[in-house]
């Protein structure tokens, strides 16, 4: 029962702030709500018993990505943004498409309403660790390469520009 309540709360937070993210005019607020939404998803992970995911979500998304977004917004922010429209002309089309998709997804998800969980969730951190350094060792290393490459790429992009301006 508690689980259910927690789930609904967290899901509400996540969905609600997500909605705000895509509709608010002030980009700074958008970024803040993004953080909230991500935290909500973290909570949902908690209800699933995925404690490691929960932690990661907080650390990476809320602590990292969302903060990064805020920084980015502040770096590029213009005062006029607050008065300008943040939604383009095609929002109606987008809404339509989303609605159609939503119907499709609804029908798919509805079929799963009968599947319940068996037993209580086991602690997942240890098996996750084994998996990562066992069967998935190579992808694990590869993903770290991807991260490094992304980091280098980012530095490269921004630095070149900085040099160009001088």
């Amino acid at each position, binding site marked *: 029962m508690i689980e259910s309540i927690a789930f609904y709360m967290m899901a509400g937070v996540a969905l609600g702030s997500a909605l705000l993210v*895509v509709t608010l005019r002030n980009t700074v607020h958008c970024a803040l709500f993004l953080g909230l939404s991500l935290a909500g998803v973290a909570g949902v992970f908690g209800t699933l018993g995925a404690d490691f995911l929960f932690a990661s979500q907080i650390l990476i998304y809320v602590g990292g990505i969302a903060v990064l977004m805020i920084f980015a917004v502040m770096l590029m922010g213009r005062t006029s943004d607050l008065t300008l429209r943040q939604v383009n002309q095609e929002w109606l*089309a987008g809404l339509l498409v989303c609605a159609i998709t939503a119907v499709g997804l609804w029908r798919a998800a509805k079929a799963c309403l009968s599947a319940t969980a068996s037993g209580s969730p086991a602690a997942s951190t240890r098996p996750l660790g084994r998996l990562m350094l066992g069967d998935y060792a190579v992808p694990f290393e590869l993903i770290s390469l991807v991260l490094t490459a992304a980091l280098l790429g980012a530095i490269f992009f921004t630095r070149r520009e900085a040099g160009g301006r001088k």
Partner: protein
Amino acid sequence: MTLTLGHYLFLGSGLFIIGIFGALTRRSVIGILMSIELIFNAANVNLAAFNRFLHPDGVTGQAFALFIMTVAAAEVVVGLALVLAIYRSRDKIYMEDINIMRG
């Protein structure tokens, strides 16, 4: 009323739809990036849920979710760097102004 897989999938779908909507309609590039993060999260929720409900003995789904997080982090880093670069060189952050792909 116990929680079922369906609940989680509804949540995932919701986040996904919102993300898609955002990606389609936001004018600023950063907004689009945020929306994409939402889509990623929708996928993660689904993965974690499938793991919990369909294969409670393993943790493969969570592992995949972890990978996605990492990729998402990389994507955000590069994305933001690109946005920053474009912003610096062209002083633009709105999508309709960036049309170098015009056929």
